[in-house]
């Protein structure tokens, strides 16, 4: 037996590691830096991260946005298309508290306010969201509604995946919106994407809203605030903080127009006085217990449009 066959595996690993390192370092300072992605990752795993999350490499400027949508102004107020019914930006009103359920920007003549509804109201409701929405479909007891939800669903992949929707079969979101009979579409996404550059996230969120509107021109779109997290969960990461979630939610709230794009925030029934999810509501700090979803659904029944 030749002695050097004992080093074959080691050599193979070392050579591959060097190749990955060099390629990763190059990508990190070129492609990734432009998109603001993976800047904290070690060079050797950059290529893996790029394979796993290709959507993170989309540069904010090149994210698809429909021509009607003006640039996002986080301070609210947009003077370009004041009469455009699809304009989701908020007229300037710094007094709007996005954490108050059912608060609508008062700039419109007759803003819709939420009111109690029967369960049958949700017969033609579509809920789009991530694992919290999935949890609601499983434990909330609202079996007459339709759910398009999955663990890890994001604004970047919402239109790329096929999911089992029960009555409508396994379809993409486009197919579901085109063929389904929905008069209200609930959307709760964003928290999965908080690790991405904020502008990239919000711009993509907006394009999702616009695409829903395009496929379902007559439905009410109800944007839901992302659920908060417990204090213990917030200390575990940097980007998953209450501040970031609140910033995201208030940006989402600004997209509502009080007429056909509305905003709801369920957090007050689950959070403490500081805005953190109460510890006894969640096992892992970010998902409510199965038994809590019933309360969420009951709250939705009190807040229909």
């Amino acid at each position, binding site marked *: 037996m030749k002695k050097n066959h004992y080093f074959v595996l080691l050599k193979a*690993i070392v050579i591959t590691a060097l190749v990955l390192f060099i390629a990763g370092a190059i990508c990190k300072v070129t492609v990734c830096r432009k998109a603001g992605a993976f800047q904290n990752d070690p060079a050797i795993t950059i290529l893996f991260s790029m394979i796993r999350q290709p959507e993170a490499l989309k540069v904010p400027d090149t994210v698809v946005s429909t021509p009607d949508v003006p640039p996002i102004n986080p301070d609210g107020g947009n003077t370009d298309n004041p009469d455009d019914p699809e304009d989701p930006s908020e007229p300037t009103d710094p007094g709007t508290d996005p954490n108050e359920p059912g608060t609508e920007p008062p700039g419109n003549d007759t803003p819709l306010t939420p009111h109690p509804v029967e369960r049958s109201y949700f017969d033609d409701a579509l809920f789009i969201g*991530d694992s919290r929405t999935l949890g609601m479909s499983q434990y909330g007891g609202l079996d007459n509604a339709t759910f398009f939800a999955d663990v890890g669903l994001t604004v970047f992949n919402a239109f790329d995946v096929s999911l089992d929707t029960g009555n409508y079969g396994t379809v993409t979101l486009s197919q579901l919106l085109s063929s389904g009979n929905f008069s209200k579409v609930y959307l709760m996404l964003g928290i999965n994407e908080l690790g991405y550059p904020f502008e990239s996230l919000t711009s993509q969120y907006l394009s999702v809203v616009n695409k829903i509107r395009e496929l379902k021109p007559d439905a009410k779109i109800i944007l839901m605030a992302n659920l908060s997290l417990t204090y213990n969960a917030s200390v575990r990461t940097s980007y998953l903080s209450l501040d970031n979630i609140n910033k995201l939610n208030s940006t989402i709230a600004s997209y509502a127009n009080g007429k056909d794009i509305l905003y709801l925030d369920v957090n007050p029934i689950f959070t403490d006085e500081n805005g953190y999810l109460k510890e006894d509501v969640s*096992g892992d700090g970010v998902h409510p217990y*199965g038994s809590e979803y019933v309360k969420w659904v009951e709250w939705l029944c009190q807040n229909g449009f």
Partner: protein
Amino acid sequence: MSFNDINFIFLFLPVFLLIYYGLPSFCRNIVLLLGSIAFLLVGGYKNPIILILPIAEIILAYLLALGMEAKRKLALPLLVVYLLGAFGVLLGFKYAGLFTGKSIILPGGISFYTFQLTGYMMDVYRQKMPPEKSLLNFSAGMLMFPKFLSGPIVPWKSLKPQLESRTLTAKKFDNGLRTFIIGLALKTLVADRIGGLWSQLGAIGYSSISTPLAWLGIMAYSLQLFFDFYGYSVMAIGIGRMLGFELPENFLFPYASKSMSDFWRRWHVTLGAWFRDYVYIPLGGSRNGKKALVFNLFVVWVMTGVWHGSTLNFLIWSMFIFGLIVAEKLSGGRFPGKNPVLTRIYMIFAIMISWMFFAITDLKDIGVYLGRLFPITGKFSGAFEGDFVFYLKQYGIYIAIGIAICLPWTKKVWLRLRSTPIFTVMLFILFWLSIYCLSGGMNDPFMYFSF
């Protein structure tokens, strides 16, 4: 810093190995000592106690052991001083959290090096071996990073000759590397994949899961716990081998055992050996009649429960096992008997239920979970229809793989084929697959699932 960490695998370990192999052989123990200190500092620089405490205990043990030999009359008092100090500190850290209400993190490795050092002290006291004269060898052996954080607990008798003389060969290195990769794959590709299920059940809340899912859950937890610890132990052996050491096996296919007594000779072998050599046998073991046997086992299992954790559920766990072992030992062989099928069925249920007590800290939650396993009474908030199938689809393949490879046939295959070209390719793939999975967990605080 742990072994399944990108920085450890691509930064610390290569640099350490280059220095270790590059310098002449008489430097190796110094390099090992300094490297282990660096390992602890990198992982625990925010909490230097992780290094200061073991170094203090090592130096104290070194000096007191020499003192025991120099003045035999003082041997017992010196031993008692050391035991009180070492166990006092260990118990202090374990229970401080309960008394102060704050959650205090145990300094890494403390349960392991406390046992390692006290075992040494007791062997010197009983004059089973002379005290170690070389402080360098002693501290290198006690602090060495392959086994510092999670064992195996190695008796000084088997460590000493290896510290004094060991050879490095290409074959050993290659062997160690392959072993390390297998351990990494077991932890990252099996344990971490299966582990998501138990976390998700915790997030759902035990009162909202169906009975089949409850059983699937503890089966998954049993596999996750095993592959996690087993994988880490295999990594430790692999690294040790790359450094010229033969560290002992900690797991001998425990899930193939036919009785609880047998199981605990195969699970965390070095811990069981420690309790046997330093508690059970000194107390008299089984030599003084049935009552003494039961009492001695009781002491061992109370200590085992406390060693594993400071909350009450660990005592319930260890007493559950104690009960089964006593029943086995007093039954004269009738329980659980010798039938290969019945004994295995007994063990599967006994193990899964015992791990349930181990996994759940809150006693009320234990009650809820038992109610889900055996749905006679108990809190049930309602599960969603098809929850068992839903999670089986997600985790079934990993659970099936886990069950398949936790049996002895894998070791036979491994020993015969590990150096063949096919296995070389397989290990290369497993390595990078593991790194891929590790890199995915880096940014995700909730490693098992993006949400």
